């Protein structure tokens, strides 16, 4: 059974009675067991790998000796044949045949060891990856637990005996309430301004062109009638005079 299957099975069994805490606690137990198993498996695989590699080395050494023997026999056979000693050559050739058979067997054995080594290395990589994943999972469960504990502490502090957890739903309601309050405040302020303040009167005065800042056509023409001709001459010197006149103008009105 896979890790998640085990945890889900546990979840089905306990979720509705005891809640997440039990699942987390048991998940941690399962994960710890998983880590131990994977750790043991890793040790076993590595021991096995060492053994197989040693066996391969021994086999390779034996094979090397046989190659030397083969070369030696080949020299003997050539020598015997040169001397025309067919009998001796045949005798050595028989030995050589046995060595060559052994060499063929060696080759097969070494190939078989190599296959085992590749297989074990793959298994070790897979176990190491699994171990890393399970350790990550333990960390996630622990982080989840830490956050849950903190959230429980915060909830207990805020809600007292009811145990209610403050959620995004409460925040949404708070946001909407604040927006409504702000809207109502702005509306009330605007209303207050127009009722009790000068808003209403000022609007009427502005319409009548009686406020100093109102830009009615009559006001503009009036300004020009008051100005001497020099204002139209575009001489820089005329500017301060205009400003002074404007200030006086406003002051008089006020």
């Amino acid at each position, binding site marked *: 059974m896979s890790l998640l299957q085990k945890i889900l099975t546990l979840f089905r069994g306990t979720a509705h009675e005891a809640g997440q805490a039990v699942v987390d606690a048991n998940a941690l137990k399962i994960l710890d067991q998983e880590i131990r198993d994977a750790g043991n498996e890793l040790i076993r695989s590595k021991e096995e790998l060492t053994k197989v590699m040693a066996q391969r080395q021994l086999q390779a050494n034996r094979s090397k000796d046989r190659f030397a023997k083969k070369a030696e026999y080949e020299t003997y056979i050539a020598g015997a044949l040169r001397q025309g000693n067919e009998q001796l050559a045949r005798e050595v050739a028989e030995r050589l045949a046995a060595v060559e058979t052994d060499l063929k067997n060696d080759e097969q054995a070494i190939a078989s060891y190599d296959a085992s080594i590749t297989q074990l290395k793959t298994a070790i990589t897979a176990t190491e990856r699994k171990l890393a994943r399970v350790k990550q999972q333990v960390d996630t469960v*622990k*982080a989840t637990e830490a956050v849950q504990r903190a959230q*429980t502490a915060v*909830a207990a502090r805020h809600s007292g005996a009811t145990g209610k957890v403050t*959620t*995004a739903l409460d925040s*949404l309601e708070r946001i909407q309430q*604040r927006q409504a309050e702000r809207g109502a405040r702005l509306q009330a302020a605007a209303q207050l301004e127009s009722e009790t303040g000068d808003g209403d009167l000022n609007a009427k005065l502005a319409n009548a062109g009686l406020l100093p800042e109102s830009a009615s056509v009559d006001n503009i023409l009036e300004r020009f009638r008051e100005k001497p001709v020099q204002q139209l001459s575009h001489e820089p010197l005329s500017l301060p005079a205009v400003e002074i006149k404007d200030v006086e103008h406003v002051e008089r009105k006020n």
Partner: protein
Amino acid sequence: MSRWTTQELLTRLAASFGADNVEEVPTADAAIQITLPEAGDLGVTIALTDREIFVSTPLVEAAQVRDAAGFNEACLRLNPINPLSNLGLTTINDRDVYIVFGEMAPDSTAEQVELEIRTLADNAIDAVEALKSYLVSA
């Protein structure tokens, strides 16, 4: 390994979110609680471990869900399109609570953690608004 201790992260987050809005929750494994005034005082909780930074906020209590099947399906459909955060179900204070959470690499920068917190809060508010029709109070 984490580049942060809880205290270091607490200091950095206090600088970003205001000291009044950031506090250490005194539990066995030291977590950080952030209150976001602009998100209706939503509380976001952060826990650090060697391999991750876990950020979580409560979405809604399961008891407040009127149509659990509809709500669950809507959550599953929202989940893949939710940036930087996931929807889940857990137990807080012995009550089943839906949460919005994110997991970050332990070597995340302060800016990344800050972005995660703000995004998580926005997502939680958006999600609860979108899911309101499945809730009791809707």
